[in-house]
C-alpha cells in the first residue's frame, strides 16, 4: 500500500514539475498558438479558389465548407498527436549518456516521458483554448453545429488514442538511436510521410482509389485524418467502431515495440564519461 502511494506521489511530482516548467513561457506560447492558425487562412483561400474554378459542389465527397472544417479539426488532432522533439531528445540522451540516469534511478524512462508529454499537452490546451475558441467561433459558419453525443465520445476516444499512438510511435523511432547514433534524417523522412499520409496535408479521400487503401492500412491516418473524419461524420456506425478498434491495436503494437526496443537497447548500451 505504502509502495503504491509513494510511487503515485513520485509520478504526481513529475507531472507537477513538468506543468510548472511549461507554464513559465505561457505568453510566448499563446501567441505561438494563435500564429499556428495563419496557414489555415491560405488553405481556406486556396480551396475557395479550387472550388470556384472546378465548378463542382463536391470534391471527393467534400463540399467547400466541409473542406475548411476538415482543416480546422485536423489541427486539434495534430495538436494532440504531434510530439515535437520527442524522438530526437531520446536519441540525444542515448548519444550523450544522459539516459543512464534512468538506469540507476527507480524511474521508468518511457513512463517519465509519457507523463511529461501529458503535462505538456495539458498546458497546451489550457493556454491554447483561448486562441482555439476564437478561431472556431470566427469559423463557425463552416460547421453544421455540434455532432451528437455518441460521435463526440468516439471523437474524444480517438483523440486520446491519437495522443498515445503519436507518443509510442515516436518513442519507438527514438529507440533506433540505440543502434544508429544519428537518426535526424530518418526523423525528417518520418515527418514528411506523416504530413502527407496522416491526412494532415489533405483529406485522404482525395487520393486515387488505387492508392487510398494502402495508405489507410498504415497507422499514420490515426494521428490526424481518422479522428477528424469521426468528428465530421464521414465515418460512422460499424466502420467507425472498426476504425477505433484498429487504432487501439496500433497503440498496443507500438507500446509493445517501444518496450521491447528499450529492453534490448539498454542491453546494448554502454555509457562513458562522468
Amino acid at each position, binding site marked *: 500500500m505504502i509502495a503504491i502511494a509513494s510511487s503515485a506521489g513520485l509520478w504526481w511530482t513529475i507531472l507537477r514539475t513538468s506543468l510548472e516548467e511549461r507554464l513559465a513561457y505561457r505568453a*510566448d506560447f499563446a501567441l505561438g498558438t494563435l*500564429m499556428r492558425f495563419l*496557414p489555415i487562412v*491560405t488553405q481556406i*483561400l486556396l480551396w475557395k479558389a479550387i472550388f*470556384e*474554378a*472546378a465548378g463542382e459542389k463536391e470534391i471527393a465527397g467534400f463540399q467547400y465548407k466541409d473542406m475548411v472544417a476538415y482543416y480546422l479539426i485536423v489541427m486539434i488532432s495534430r495538436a494532440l498527436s504531434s510530439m515535437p522533439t520527442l524522438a530526437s531528445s531520446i536519441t540525444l540522451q542515448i548519444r550523450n549518456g544522459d539516459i543512464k540516469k534512468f538506469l540507476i534511478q527507480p524511474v521508468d524512462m518511457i513512463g517519465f516521458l509519457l507523463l511529461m508529454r501529458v503535462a505538456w499537452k495539458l498546458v497546451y490546451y489550457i493556454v491554447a483554448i483561448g486562441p482555439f475558441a476564437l478561431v472556431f467561433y470566427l469559423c463557425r459558419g463552416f460547421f453544421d453545429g455540434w455532432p451528437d453525443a455518441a460521435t463526440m465520445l468516439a471523437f474524444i476516444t480517438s483523440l486520446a488514442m491519437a495522443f498515445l499512438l503519436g507518443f509510442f510511435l515516436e518513442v519507438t523511432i527514438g529507440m533506433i538511436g540505440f543502434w544508429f547514433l*544519428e537518426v535526424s534524417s530518418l526523423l525528417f523522412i518520418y515527418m*514528411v510521410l506523416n504530413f502527407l499520409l496522416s491526412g494532415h496535408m489533405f483529406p485522404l479521400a482525395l487520393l486515387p482509389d488505387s492508392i487510398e487503401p494502402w495508405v489507410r492500412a498504415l497507422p499514420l491516418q490515426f494521428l490526424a485524418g481518422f479522428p477528424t473524419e469521426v468528428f465530421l461524420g464521414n465515418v460512422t456506425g460499424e466502420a467507425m467502431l472498426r476504425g477505433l478498434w484498429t487504432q487501439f491495436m496500433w497503440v498496443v503494437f507500438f507500446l509493445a515495440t517501444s518496450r521491447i526496443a528499450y529492453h534490448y537497447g539498454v542491453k546494448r548500451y554502454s555509457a562513458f564519461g562522468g
Partner: protein
Amino acid sequence: MRRSKSTHPSYLAVLATFARNSLVRDMTFRGNFLIECVTSLAWMTMNLYFYMLIFQFTQEIGSDTGWSKFPFLVFLATTMLVNSLVQTFIMPNAAEFSELIRMGNLDFALLKPIDTQFLISFQKIQWSSLSNFFFGAALLAYSLARLNHVPGVIEVVLYPVYIVTGVAIMYSLMICLAATSVWMGRNQTLYDFWFYITTFSRYPIEIYKGGLGRPFMIGFTFVVPILIVANVPARFLAKPLQKGEWYLAGYAAIATIASLYVSRQIFRKALVGYRSASS
C-alpha cells in the same frame, strides 16, 4: 614606405572563402550530405504531388485567373527556386545569429574588420539545399515546355533578376526578425512567425480576395512585401504580361530596395542595443 592597397578586405574573396569552407565541411560528412539532399527533395516531391492531386479535380486554381496546371507549375517551380536559395544562403546564418547574441559570441563578429551584417549573413552556406534548386529548375523546364505561349526575351531576361529580388526581400525580412533577438533574447516564436508568414508567399496573388483575403493581400504586398517574391517572376514566364502588370514589376524593384534599406537600419539599431553576454 609601402602603403597597403586597401584598408577594406575584398568582400568577394571573403565570400569565396566562406563558400569553400562550407563546402569542405559538407564534404567531410559526404553520407550525411547525400541524405540531406534526398530528404529535402522528399519535401519538394510531396508538395508537387499535392498540386498534381488538386489538378485531378480542377482545371484551374481560381476561376479565370489563368493558373491552370502548367502555368501553376511554373509558379510552384519559382517558389522552389526562391526558397532553395533562401535555405542555402540565408537560413543557416539567421539561425546562428540569435545564438551568437544569446551566448555573447557576437563580440567576435563585431571585432573583425569587416561589415558585421555581411559577416553574419553569409558565413555559412548550406550546399545540400541547392538540390532543391535543381529540382525547381527541372520542374520549371518541364512546365515551360508545356505552356501555350512562348515567353518573350525581356521576360526571360527579367526572370532571374526578379528571382534575386525575391531572395533579397526574404533576406531583409529574415534580418529584421533575427535583429529583434537583440532585444528579446529568445525569439523562438519569431522564427515560427517567419515560417508562418512566408507560407503566404507560396500562393498566387489572385487567391487573396474577398473579406478574408483582401487584408492579407494588401498587408503582404505593401507592408511586408512577401507576396511579390514569387508572384512577380512567375508571372513573367507563366502568363503573357498584361499592360497594367508592368507596374507590378516596377513596384517589386522599389519594394526590394526599400526592404533592404529598412532591414539595414533595423540591423544597425540592433547592434547599438547589443550588450555582451559573456562573463
